[in-house]
């Protein structure tokens, strides 16, 4: 899968799920891409670099989301 294809796939799937959640584990992304984690990582790194995704961190765990989506509250499981 090339980068553009992966970008469309990730954006589509994450947008679809926005109603229920806005933060995703790395594994969720690898599943969407249907790739082994190490391969998926190369693409996910690029998506972050280009601002398609952004990191969210609690300090102990990291998650990914699309910039501007979800409130702090959703990350804290309040909704």
């Amino acid at each position, binding site marked *: 899968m090339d980068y553009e294809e992966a970008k469309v796939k990730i954006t589509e799937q994450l947008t679809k799920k926005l109603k229920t959640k806005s933060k995703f584990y790395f594994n969720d992304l690898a599943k969407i891409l249907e790739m082994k*984690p190490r391969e998926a990582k190369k693409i996910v790194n690029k998506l972050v670099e280009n601002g398609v995704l952004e990191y969210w961190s609690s300090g102990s765990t990291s998650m990914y989301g699309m910039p501007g989506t979800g409130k702090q509250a959703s990350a804290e499981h309040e909704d």
Partner: protein
Amino acid sequence: MAKHETPLLSQLETGPWPSFVSDIKREAESRAKNEKGIDYQIPVDACEDLLGVLELSYKHGRTHWKHGGIVGVFGYGGGVIGRYCDQPEQFPGVAHFHTMRVSQPAGKFYTTEYLKGLCDLWEFRGSGITNMHGSTGDIIFIGTTTPQLEEVFYELTHTFNQDLGGSGSNLRTPSDCVGQARCEFACYDTQAICHELTNYYQDELHRPAFPYKFKFKFDGCPNCCVASIARSDLSFIGTWRDEIRIDAEAVKAYVGGELKPNGGAHAGRDWGAFDIQKEVVDLCPTKCMRYADGKLEINNKECTRCMHCINVMPRALRIGNDRGVTILAGAKAPILDGAQMGTLIVPFMKAEAPYDDIKEKVIEPIWDWWMEEGKNRERLGELMKRQGLQRMIEVLGVDPDPRMVQEPRSNPYIFWKEDEVEGGWKRDINEFRKYHKR
């Protein structure tokens, strides 16, 4: 006059130990006076407000910090931990109060000039409060605002030749004991490997893609000064394969009292004359030592490298010459529950630069397995428990070794794989159905 009344915190200062409350109060005072004329980049009363919000937390029995956030420096998924106060009107100085983790130098060697530089930077662009060092080993800068993050990062990387450490689902900042720099017990160069793996695994350190945190720690010998055996997902402990070197003359000198046992460490009280039988031979956990007719002998095959005899008589007994590492996996020390010690997976391996065997035969296969099969927020040790040591051995492609076994088996089942059984167990389903109707 303090900005907030903090009777509960002040009570903490009355105990016998140095108090972090006094430290924060001192920093608050020093910021208010500003004798050095610093152009503070975050609110001057940040420390006052920190005390205030902490007092309130004690009063309510609840934290007033919000959990996590989207802060960081460009391209990094770790190293910054977003902290926001949920009472920003009352405590504006700590409305944004992010933590930065700074990678510590291998072995934690600094010059005072360097330390002063770091502190000056943090007074200028942060709260001035540090934690030297955090549990993982990092230098912790406590409290700054979002706009300062990139500024601090720029200074660290350009002026101090230093990087941010790991946080989140990353490789955490690797840490090591002081090793060969100062310690003659070190069986390999802990600083060299710590530095090399930190540089080699930059992507894993800064861009989170693991199920959870992952720690490497390097101890030069089984004394385990960085407690790798208890605190790291992969623990590297120095060891030797040959024999403990005995200097018979020095043994005599210990027995005769010319040399002080334990390097003179227990000199505060008179413990009587040194008794080699009682203090060394009888305490050997494997009973593999003998002292008779003024001669000390060790049955090295039985020795588990516990270090006791060497610690007591360092001038007489020395680590062997054929040195390397033992590798253990799966330790963790979470605050709440589930603490677990490491399990031995590699009894002996040479630890020489560029450490290709360690990288390619141990670290990377383990990561591949854990990244694919680990659940979200599952540490390596938990995956090992869930899938069993047998799976771990498969992942590493090594033969099982009695030294990996901690206790007799408690599971009565033995599972064979088809290729381990002569003839396999393929069956002809049509043949079977002739005699067994559906």
